[in-house]
């Protein structure tokens, strides 16, 4: 436990020893993964408490619907939000709430409690999933740029970039959520670049390129996919009009 805490603190202070320790093979990777688990559980405590409070006060389907509809009204200000989209969303919300209001074998508060805990326990897997995905793509970029990190070394070092997300525990403070998320992301990005440089034994400038490359590639891919879908829709519309 002390080692995990020390590793997390070292990452926050951008200490090279922390990244070396995280990247020292299977044992380092295990310890770094433990850091990710602790961070995700800590960051999710706020949501867990909200879920437990909801379970305790027994929110009615009508109240839940009112809350969702209030959020939907905000969405309606977005450009391109049509009446058909609204109708589809309202139908989906009503269906889910209607099904949710049906009786279950276990009492309702207990069901909500179990589900809230399930969501909270799932947070480490979600955070670890994004860490794995991004680190693997960044490793490919780093290798193309002359990096030398092995897979476990890269994963172990970059795992520590998740530590700042513990800040989002404080997101429940009014008006602070977005600022805290932005700060966590910025701090996390700096740690990721530093970890990539340390694991790959490469200069910071190249590490920045390796960090940015997956995001750039994803933007290009999504744009291409979107363009393909748009072209397909136009072709279908033209075919329907012609037929």
């Amino acid at each position, binding site marked *: 436990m002390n080692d995990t805490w020390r590793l997390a603190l070292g990452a926050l202070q951008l200490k090279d020893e922390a990244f070396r320790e995280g990247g020292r093979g*299977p044992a380092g990777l295990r310890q770094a993964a433990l850091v990710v688990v602790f961070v995700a559980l800590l960051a999710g405590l706020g949501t867990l408490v909200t879920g437990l409070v909801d379970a305790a006060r027994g929110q009615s389907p009508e109240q839940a619907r009112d809350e969702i509809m209030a959020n939907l009204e905000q969405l309606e200000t977005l450009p391109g939000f049509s009446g058909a989209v609204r109708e589809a969303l309202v139908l989906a919300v009503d269906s889910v709430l209607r099904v949710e209001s*049906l009786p279950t074998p276990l009492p309702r508060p207990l069901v909500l409690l*179990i589900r809230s805990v399930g969501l909270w326990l799932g947070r480490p897997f979600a955070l670890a*999933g994004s860490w794995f*995905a991004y680190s693997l793509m960044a490793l490919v970029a780093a290798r193309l740029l002359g990096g030398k990190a092995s897979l476990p070394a890269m994963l172990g070092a970059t795992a520590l970039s998740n530590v700042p997300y513990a800040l989002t525990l404080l997101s429940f403070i009014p008006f602070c959520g977005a600022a805290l998320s932005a700060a966590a992301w910025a701090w996390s990005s700096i740690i990721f670049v530093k970890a990539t440089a340390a694991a790959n034994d490469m200069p910071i400038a190249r590490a920045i390129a390796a960090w940015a490359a997956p995001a750039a590639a994803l933007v290009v891919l999504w744009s291409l996919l979107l363009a393909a879908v748009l072209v397909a829709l136009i072709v279908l519309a033209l075919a329907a009009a012609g037929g």
Partner: protein
Amino acid sequence: MEAAADNLPGDPAVPQNSRPAGPTDPLRLIWAALWFHEAAYAEVRDSPSPFGRGLVVALLLAAISAVSGALGLGLDWLVSPDSQAARRAGLETMQASEWYRGLAQGPGGREFEQQAQAFYDLWWQVAPFITNLPSPAGLARYLCLTPAFSVLGWLFFGSLTFAAARLLGGRGGFGPTLGVLALAGAPQALDLFTVWPGLEIGALSGWWSLALAYWAVRSVHGLGWGRNLMAVLLARLVLSGLMLALLVVGLALAAANLGPLAAGG
């Protein structure tokens, strides 16, 4: 078998022809493989029957998935409403919506209602097989289909990856490749956590398996990192291509069937 000449300093070659003292049983092998322990991969690769060792691991992982899924379904049943009641409630909500009533009262309303009912019934027949709805069909899926697809998936991906690795200059045999690739399925053991209702593993298992597959192929074929990566990705690209083709055909068929309905005919 030799280590690739272009292996990088940070990616040390695996000691060849050695059987390091290490994990000896499948569970410990899975645990070690999960954390990229080279000894686990070397042990399977260098064993007299690497395919057999891999098969034992693949069967164990399939059993873990099946049992976890079945137990999870049982616990899901405790926190879910009765599926028939949910089916009725969903249909009633849809029929009460403005969208539905508008179409049902318009020209061709009767046909629309019949089609909508048919699609809704079809969904409820398919849903138990593709969602976590507690049902006998869901249980059958977990106990029969999940393990079968798990083992067949290992054989399919393993064979394709082996072919790709050999095409790219790899020197490993079929048995060792399949053996070590069974270890790449180790993240499937995370399914144990999904017993808890509402707990989702998400994409972690897939990314982790991909990374382990790279590690596994590297330990057998001695390819440089680029070719190694291509060998691992090729099998997945082939499967993605097949699924995309199926999706396009499915969408085209759906569009052909829905076209007359949308046009009011």
